[in-house]
C-alpha cells in the first residue's frame, strides 16, 4: 500500500471512508443507542468473531441478529450501505486495539475448519490461500504486491470497488481470482475462514476503517 493510500486512510476528516462512519453513527443513534452504550462497544470488533448460541457469527451477522430479534426489524442485506456503515462505525470503536479473537474449546472446531479452508486448494487455478499469502507474500503478482492478507481494517474502503466492502466481499474477490465459484454471502465457509484469518492476525492493531487499493 503506497504512502498516498495510507494518507487517505489516516485522513479522519475527509478520507474516503469518513462518509460511511458518519452514516454509521447516524444509524447507531437511531437504532442501537436506545439499548447500547457506545462505550461498551469498545473492544467488540477486536474480539469478533464470536459464538452466538453455539453458532459462529461475524459482526455483520450479529448486528442482524439484534435487528431481527430485538428490534423486530428486517435484517440489513449483506454489503448494504447500512450494514457496512454500521459495522465501520462499530469497528472504529476498537481502532488501535490489538485483535484478540477468543479461543476456547467451543470455537476450536470452527478455527480448525477455517485453518483447513485456508490450506485448501480451490478453483481452476487450483490455489490455496496459504500458497500466496503465507509462502509468497511480498512478491509481485501481475504488478501488485501480494499481501499477508490480515483483515485488520474491515470493512474497508477499497479503491478498486470505489466504495466500502466487507471481508466476505474481499474473500469472494479472491475466490473469483482463482476462478472458483464463490459461496453465497453469509455462507458458513466464509465465517470459519474469517475466524481463522482474525486468529492469524491476533495481536495486530485493528485499523477499521482501512483504505486499500
Amino acid at each position, binding site marked *: 500500500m503506497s504512502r*498516498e*493510500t495510507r*494518507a487517505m486512510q489516516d485522513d479522519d476528516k475527509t478520507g474516503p471512508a469518513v462518509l460511511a462512519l458518519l452514516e454509521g453513527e447516524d444509524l447507531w443513534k437511531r437504532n442501537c443507542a436506545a439499548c447500547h452504550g457506545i462505550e461498551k462497544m469498545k473492544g467488540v470488533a477486536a474480539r469478533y468473531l464470536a459464538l452466538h448460541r453455539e453458532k459462529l457469527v461475524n459482526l455483520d451477522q450479529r448486528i442482524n441478529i439484534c435487528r431481527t430479534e430485538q428490534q423486530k426489524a428486517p435484517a440489513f442485506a449483506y454489503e448494504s450501505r447500512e450494514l457496512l456503515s454500521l459495522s465501520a462505525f462499530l469497528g472504529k470503536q476498537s481502532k488501535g486495539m490489538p485483535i484478540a479473537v477468543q479461543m476456547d474449546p467451543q470455537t476450536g472446531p470452527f478455527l480448525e475448519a477455517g485453518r483447513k479452508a485456508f490450506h485448501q486448494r480451490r478453483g481452476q487455478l487450483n490455489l490455496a490461500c496459504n500458497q500466496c499469502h503465507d509462502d509468497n507474500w511480498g512478491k509481485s503478482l*501481475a*504488478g*501488485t504486491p501480494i499481501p499477508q492478507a490480515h483483515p485488520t481494517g474491515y470493512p474497508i474502503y477499497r479503491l*478498486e470497488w470505489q466504495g466500502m466492502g466487507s471481508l466476505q466481499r474481499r474473500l469472494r474477490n*479472491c475466490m*473469483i481470482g482463482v476462478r472458483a465459484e464463490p459461496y453465497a454471502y453469509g455462507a458458513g465457509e466464509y465465517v470459519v475462514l474469517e475466524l481463522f484469518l482474525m486468529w492469524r492476525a491476533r495481536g495486530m492493531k485493528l485499523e477499521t476503517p482501512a483504505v486499500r487499493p
Partner: protein
Amino acid sequence: MTTRREFLLLSCGALAAAGAQAQLPPKVAAARAQGLEEALRRVTGGAELRIGKVALDVPPLIDNGNSVPITVTVQSPMTAAEHVRSIHIFTEKNPQPNILAARLGPRAGRAAVTTRARIADSGRVIAVAQLSDGSFWADNADVVVTVSACLEDGFI
C-alpha cells in the same frame, strides 16, 4: 517559436509514451491523444503554453487508477494585480481528457488545488494554469498505473 515547440513537446511526448507502454489499441490511443490536444487548445484558445511556474504532484507509481491523489500548486503572489485565474488538470489515456477545472482568484491566498482522479492507464497527467495576465503555464508528469491482480468481474 519556443512556445509551439514546448506545446508539441507535451503532445508528442504523450504520443511517444503511448507507443512505449501501449495497453490500448493504437487507434484508440491516438484518438485519446488527439482529444487531449483539443482539450488543451480549448483552454488556451491556441495561445502559448509555457512549461514552468506550475508544480504537479502525482505519485509516479499508482496503487489503483480508481483514486489517484493529485495536487497542483502554482507560484504566484495571488494579489489582485497578479494571481492565478484557473487551474486545469488533464490526463492522456482516459476516454475523455478533462479531470477538473478550478477557478481561483486573489482571495485564494495560495494557488493550490487537490483532488482524486481516475486514471485509466499509464501515461501523462498535465496541469495548466491561466494567470491574470492571460498567460498559460503547464507541468506534466508520467504515471504508471497498476491494476489489482484479482478482479471482481462484476457481481456474481
